[in-house]
């Protein structure tokens, strides 16, 4: 997956572009930032696009795979995570990146998101979080703030938002971070760490919808974000991570950076099916070599 030669740039930005002339996002959409930061991180990590699979659900954000090199799956709404689980388990050598909206991942897809996380497969999941349903033209999403007036809550949202960071922590993800589309450098750094992390990495990417979310704008975030890297935050301390997770809610400050990181055996490392016969896709379909041993139980 990761190129081995140190000083040769085998893969460049060009390899991570597609022939889709221009992403279909609105001018100014936060998702552009996610795209360029992700490309940058991939190049810096010298990952081979041919062995990469980028998976999304449905939403503005979920058009992502069409704009980035590598293989892509643009699946159905809310199901990026299980698609990634199936792909990664079938070919554990792939670099698998999931990108999709807050609605996609934390609304309809919440179950799959949490269960994928606790599995600790080596997958990077970027939530392109704009606190709104963009593609369906502006209804509340699970991260919309209280009071938000949207097409589905014309008189104001009365439902407490999900806190993606504490949700990711509760889901047993082994890497939990947040970053902001308005800060390209920080974004690329976080993405790099997330992809390099061995295990399930979740990045809550604050990615403003300039068309439908008039509240959580670039300015809103610029006024509130600060970098955890610039504090003495201990990323190995789960409780500290939870504490930071609630700062937005209780202190109106939005920490960005890595909240939590821990090394644990990945699912792949423990999967029995690889032990004797290796990567299923690379090896190809095979007759069960131990057929006799299997069927003897049926006599």
């Amino acid at each position, binding site marked *: 997956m990761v190129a081995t030669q140190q000083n040769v740039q085998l893969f460049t930005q060009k390899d991570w572009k597609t*022939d*889709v002339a221009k992403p*279909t996002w609105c001018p100014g959409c936060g998702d552009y930032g996610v795209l360029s930061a992700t490309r940058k991180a991939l190049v810096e990590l010298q990952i081979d*696009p*041919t*062995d*990469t*699979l980028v*998976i999304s659900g*449905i939403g503005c954000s979920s*058009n992502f*795979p*069409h704009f980035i*090199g*590598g*293989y*892509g*799956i*643009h*699946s*159905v709404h809310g*199901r990026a*995570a*299980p*698609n*990634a*689980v*199936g*792909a*990664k*388990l*079938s*070919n554990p*050598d*792939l670099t698998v990146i999931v990108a999709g909206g807050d609605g996609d991942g934390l609304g309809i897809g919440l*179950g*799959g998101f949490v*269960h994928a996380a606790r599995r600790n497969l080596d997958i990077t999941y970027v939530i392109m979080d704009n606190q709104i349903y963009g593609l369906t033209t502006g209804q509340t999403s699970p991260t919309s703030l209280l009071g938000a007036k949207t097409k589905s809550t014309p008189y104001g949202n009365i439902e407490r938002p999900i806190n993606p960071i504490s949700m990711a922590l509760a889901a047993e993800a082994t890497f939990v971070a947040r970053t902001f589309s308005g800060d390209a450098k920080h974004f690329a750094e976080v993405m790099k760490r997330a992809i390099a992390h061995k295990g399930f990495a979740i990045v809550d990417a604050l990615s403003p919808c300039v068309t439908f979310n008039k509240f959580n704008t670039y300015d809103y975030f610029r006024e509130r974000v600060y970098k955890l890297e610039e504090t003495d935050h201990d990323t190995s301390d789960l409780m500290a991570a939870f504490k930071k997770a609630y700062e937005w809610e209780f202190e109106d400050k939005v920490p960005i950076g890595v909240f939590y990181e821990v090394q644990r055996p990945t699912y792949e490392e423990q*999967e*029995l*099916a*690889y032990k*004797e*016969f*290796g990567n*299923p*896709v690379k*090896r*190809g*379909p*095979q*007759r*069960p*070599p*131990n*057929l006799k041993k*299997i*069927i003897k139980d*049926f*006599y």
Partner: protein
Amino acid sequence: MKNEISFRISGQNGDGIFSSGEVFSKICSRSGLHVHGYRSYQSVIRGGHVNYSVRAANWDVAAPANYIDVLIALRPDSFIVDAPHMSDDGIILYDSKGFRIKPENVKVKEGVRVVDMPAVELAAQFSNLKIVANTVFLGAVVAIFNLDMSVFEKMLADNFASKGEEVVRVNVESARAGYNWAKENLEPLQLDITIDPNAEPKMFIGGNEALALGMLIGGLQFYAWYPMTPASPVGHFIAKYGELAGVVCKQMEDEINVSNSVVGAAVAGARAACATSGGGFALMTEAIGYASMVEAPVVYIEVARGGPSTGLPTKQEQGDLRQLLGASQGDYPRAIIAQTSVEDGIILGQEALNIAEKYQMPVIIASDLYMGEHFETIPEPDPEAIPIERGKLILDEVPEEMRPYKRYLVTEDGISPRTIPGVKYGQYDAGSDEHDEFGKLISDVRAGYPESIKIRIEQMNKRMRKMETLLKELPAPTAEGHPPEDADVLLVTWGSLLDITREARRELETQHGKRTAHLNIRYIEPFHSKEVKEILESYQKAGAKIILVENNYTGQMGQHIRMKTGFEIKDKYLRYDGETILPREITSAVLEILNR
């Protein structure tokens, strides 16, 4: 003189009914007989009334027995649920003391011999485990059916070998005690069966397991599942045997994600499958259309049970055909094939994976509780009988003349050369939106443009052409039995009713002098409309009665046939009470209709 063994043991869940049934099945199998086993169970885990029926003969019995010849009745409810199915001269063994079955429970029809056997007392000589009484009973049954005791003893030795000699001894002696008691106290049944205690045993396996095994042989690489009766045994099998053979077996969090994970796996290049029952399948449907749209090869197995909704979770029904046909929105190509026998599971498991991969589309296997959860002796599968066919798959780099690579190339047969991640120059996006040959979306900014409209039509046509290409490859159905000019009746069934109906036909032919024919549908989509219509019309013209037999309320296959051919089968025998149809029930329904 009977030419078959028909045995049942019944009691409460927890009484060891199923293991006793399995032991007896294997005794028969090791005696050189063909065996059919079937269990009836409840949703509750303990206490519900359950039974296990075994039928064995020198010929290949492939249907449940019409009547029970010997019943071990462990509980009072055995006299409510099971005794009514006794044959006129059947024998019921029970233990009035051991299981405290009160005399007023013992209600049976005339002729049935009810034998109060001190099984618990006999067992107590060797063990204070109540379950050992079952072994005593089984010993008696071996005697009654004139089977060879050495086979039973060897089975016990094999089964309990890991638990030590003492356990083996206890069991063998208990079995002998029962055997001897029966030899002393009971007349054995008069049977016309040849027993060969040294016969090569046959494989004895359930319909679900056979399907799972078929898929293993077919090169399955990824299996996802979520437990659901009666489909769970497929998962249990692959969790146990597949994992050791290199197949990833993943229990997911729900059926939606099962259904999506297999698409992810398929796009990544794995032969992927999953199984569920009605309600779980409902949740899978969205992703089936998605699989077809991105042209991913996936096998979806639906083992139906009594519906609607949670319905009768432990009971038989062929009630989900309409759901399979109506899965997911829009028009899209997919195959639907019914499993028709335990042995067919071995074939179908491989065939489905091949069709899925060659046609790059979902294949749905229609099974049901009876099909999946009954057991039969079958020949040992030949792992090389069916080649693994992967179709137009590019595994090395995409050749230069095919670059830039078009994943959804419009072709005459509807099938486009396919790459998987890792293949150089083969990158594409598998997108659930409508797309062009490269996989680029046309729905997003270019919908309604003249060139997009054209692409849409081309891609729809291309995809749907796969149905025609496949239909040509599939063998057309034929009616078995008497030809039209010579038949009184043509029975029309599908899937799991194949063998049961065959046996009914045998009864109709031999006992009632009827000349019968039978059309059993296996390929449901694409459908051989022309051939089926011809068959139906030829029998109708020749004056044969055509009768539809199905295990559901509305006659869903009958409706499907009518939709595809216009032919309405007016006479029907439909069962929707949750019970498996017995051969004799079809026989009498047919006679009733013929005599109308």
